[in-house]
C-alpha cells in the first residue's frame, strides 16, 4: 500500500483514508482505531465522573443541578492551589493522591454550599425555581473565580512524568493510562458506597421515594446534602484529572464538559448510576469516532453526538438504562 494523499478541498478531508503506511508492519488502520478507542475511553471516563454528579442529584431530587459544571471547575482550581503549595516538598504518587483528595474535599464542600444556598430553601417552591437559583449560583462561581482567582489561563502541573508508552502494539501516553485508572477506581468506590454501605442504602431509599424514606426515619435533608457532596467530590476529582490531562485550567472550563456530561447522564437514563457511566463512555466514543473518522468530523462531532442522543431517546424515552415508567411532568 502506498501513501495516497489527495489534495483536500476545504470541505472534505480524506484524513484517515489516505493514511496508510507500509513501514509500521501491522495494519495501521487497526492501530489507529485502537489509539482512537483509547482516546475515547479516557474522555469517556472523565465524562462519566461528571455525569454521575448530575445523575445522583437527579435521582434523589428529580432536578438538574445546573451548578455542577462550576464544581468541576472549582475542583480543578483547588487542585492547582494545593499542588502549588505542596510540590516543593512532595512529588509523585503521594502528591497526586493529596491533590486529588484535597480538591475532592473542596469540591464536595462547594456541593454542600450549593445545596444549602440554592436548593434547600426552595424545597417546596415551584418545580423549576431551584434550577434558576442553581444557574444564578453557577454564574456567581464562574465570575468569582474570574474576578478573584485568575482572569487568564493557568498552567496545570503534570504531577507525573509523562511519556509515550507502548501497550502491546499501540501507543498511549502514561498520563492517559493514569487518568483512566483513577477514574475507574473512583467509579468502583462509588459503586461500593452506594451498594454496600448504610449511607448508600439511605440514598437509594431517598431516590426511590423521598416521602417514604422520610417516614422510615431517614433524615432526608441530610441525605440530599450528602448526595450533593458525593457528586461534588466526583466532579472535583474530574476537575483535577481534566486539568492534568489538558495541562491548563481557566475559569470557564466547566461549561462545555458540564453540558456534555449532562447529556451523557440523560443518554444513560438519568437517575441511574450505571447508566451515567455507560452514557459517559458512549458519548466519549461517539465524539472521538466522529472527529476521527467522519469527513470534517471535528466540527460536526457535537451535531453527531446530539443526533445520536435524540435518536436514542426517541427509541427509548427514558434513556438506555432508565426505568420505563411514566414520570409526572
Amino acid at each position, binding site marked *: 500500500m502506498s*501513501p495516497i*494523499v*489527495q*489534495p*483536500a*478541498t*476545504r*470541505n472534505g*478531508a*480524506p*484524513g*484517515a483514508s*489516505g*493514511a496508510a*503506511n507500509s513501514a509500521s508492519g501491522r495494519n*495501521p488502520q487497526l492501530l*489507529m482505531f485502537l*489509539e*482512537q478507542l483509547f*482516546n*475515547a475511553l*479516557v*474522555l469517556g471516563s472523565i465524562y462519566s465522573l461528571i455525569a454521575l454528579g448530575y445523575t445522583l442529584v437527579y435521582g434523589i431530587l428529580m432536578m438538574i443541578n445546573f451548578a455542577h459544571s462550576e464544581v468541576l471547575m472549582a475542583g480543578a482550581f483547588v487542585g492547582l492551589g494545593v499542588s502549588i503549595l505542596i510540590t516543593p516538598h512532595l512529588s509523585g504518587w503521594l502528591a497526586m493522591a493529596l491533590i486529588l483528595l484535597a480538591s475532592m474535599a473542596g469540591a464536595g464542600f462547594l456541593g454542600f454550599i450549593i445545596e444549602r444556598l440554592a436548593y434547600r430553601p426552595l424545597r417546596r417552591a415551584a418545580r423549576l425555581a431551584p434550577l434558576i437559583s442553581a444557574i444564578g449560583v453557577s454564574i456567581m462561581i464562574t*465570575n468569582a473565580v*474570574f474576578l478573584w482567582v485568575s*482572569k*487568564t*489561563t493557568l*498552567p496545570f502541573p503534570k504531577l507525573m512524568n*509523562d511519556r*509515550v508508552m507502548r501497550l502491546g502494539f499501540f*501507543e498511549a*501516553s502514561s*498520563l492517559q493510562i493514569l487518568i483512566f485508572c483513577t477514574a475507574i477506581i473512583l467509579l468502583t468506590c462509588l459503586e461500593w458506597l452506594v451498594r454496600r454501605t448504610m449511607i448508600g442504602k439511605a440514598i437509594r431509599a431517598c431516590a426511590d421515594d423521598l416521602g417514604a424514606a422520610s417516614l422510615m426515619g431517614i433524615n432526608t435533608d441530610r441525605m440530599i446534602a450528602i448526595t450533593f457532596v458525593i457528586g461534588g467530590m466526583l466532579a472535583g476529582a474530574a476537575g483535577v484529572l*481534566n486539568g492534568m490531562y*489538558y*495541562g*491548563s485550567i*481557566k*475559569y*470557564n*472550563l466547566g*461549561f*462545555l*464538559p458540564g453540558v456534555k456530561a449532562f447529556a451523557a447522564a440523560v443518554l444513560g437514563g438519568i437517575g441511574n448510576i450505571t447508566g451515567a457511566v455507560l452514557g459517559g463512555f458512549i458519548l466519549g466514543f461517539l*465524539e*472521538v*469516532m*466522529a*472527529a*476521527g*473518522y467522519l469527513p*470534517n*468530523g*471535528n*466540527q460536526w*462531532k*457535537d451535531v453527531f453526538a446530539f443526533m445520536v442522543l435524540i435518536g436514542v431517546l426517541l427509541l427509548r424515552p427514558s434513556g438506555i438504562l432508565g426505568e420505563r415508567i411514566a414520570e409526572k411532568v
Partner: protein
Amino acid sequence: MIQRIKLHLLVLAALIISACSQKPKSIRIAVAMPLTGDMGTEGQGVKRAVMLAIEEANASGEFSLPLEARALDDRADPKEAVSVANMIASDPSVIAVIGHYNSGCSIPASQVYARANIPMISPASTNPKLTSQQEEPSWTLPKCIFRVVPTDDVQGSFAAEFVRGKLKFNQVAVIHDKSPYGQGLAEQFHDSFIKNGGQVISFDGIAIGERDFRALLTRIKGAKPEGVYFGGLYMEASLIIKQARELGLKAPFFSGDGSKTDELIKVAGGAVEGSYFSITGIPVEHLPSAKPFLEKYNQKYPGSSVKPFDHFGYEATQIILTALKQTGADRAKLTEAIRSMRHEGVLGVTEFDQKGDTKNKIITMTQVKNGEFVIVN
C-alpha cells in the same frame, strides 16, 4: 400590585426625563471589549493596555482636560455590543472608541458609531467586512471605522509562502477555530499553499473553549503531514501542540499572531519548542519603540502577561491621542485627522488606506527557541 408597578414605571420615566445632562469635565475614550464571559481574558488585556496609554497621556500634561477611559463590557455578544455602542454614541464626552474585540460585535456596533460620527478603531477584529462595508454604495454614513490589526489575508498567505517556499513542505494539515479570525487565517493559508503547489491534506474546524483534540490529532498523525497550521488563539493552540506531541505527532506547528503569547509557552511548555508563529509588524520584543510599552505594562500589571492584541489596543489609543493633539475634542475632525495620519509607534509605521485598514502589512516569522520567540526570516 400591577397598578403599583405601573406607577413605578411612570415615576421612573419622570426621573429619567428630569435627569439633566452635565457639562463634560473630561475627555473620554471608550473601550468596548468583552470584559466578562468566555472572551473576558482577551478583553481585559486590551483594556489594560488602553488604560496604560491614557495614564501616560495624563501624566505627560499635554492635554488641557483630563483624559478618561470609559470601559464597557460587550461580553462578546453582538446585541450587547450594539447596546454598548449606543451608550457610547449618546455620551457627548466620548470622542473615540477602541473596540470591539470580535468581528461579530464590531460590525453591527460600527454602524452605530458611524451614525454618531465617532471614530472607531478596532484592535482585534479581522473580518474584512468591518471596513469594506464603508465602500458599499448603500453606505451613506461618515467613514469613521478603522482598524490597526491587518486582515487575515495578508498573514495567511505570508505563512503559506514561508512554509512552501522556505521550508519546502509539500503536505500540511490545517486546523482552525471556527471563529472569523481563525477561519479566515486558515482559509487564506489553505488557498495560498495550494496556489504555490502544495497539498493540504486536511482542513478541520474546532470550537473555541474545546479542550480535547486527541481524536482529530490522531487522525492527522495517521495522514503524516509535514507540518500543521492552526488559525486561532493561544488557548487552543497550546492545547493542540501539547496533545499532538503527547500523541507522537512531531510535525512542526505553525500559527498566527493570535497564538503568539507567553501563556502559550507557559501552558504548552517544552512541546512548543520549534514551532513557528507569524506576526504582524515586528515583534514587540524586537521593536525599539515597543520596549518601553512592555516594560511599563509589566511594571504596572505584574502577573498579567501581554495578550496577543494588547499592543494593538495600546497603538489604537496612541493614534487617537496623537489626533487629539492636532484637532481637539471634536469627533468629526478627529476622524479626518486619523485618516490622514502617519503614526510611528509600537507596531512600526501605521497609516490608513481608503477603507480604513492599516497599510502596515509587514509580517515577521518567529520560531520558539529555548522558550523564546526568535525572528527567523
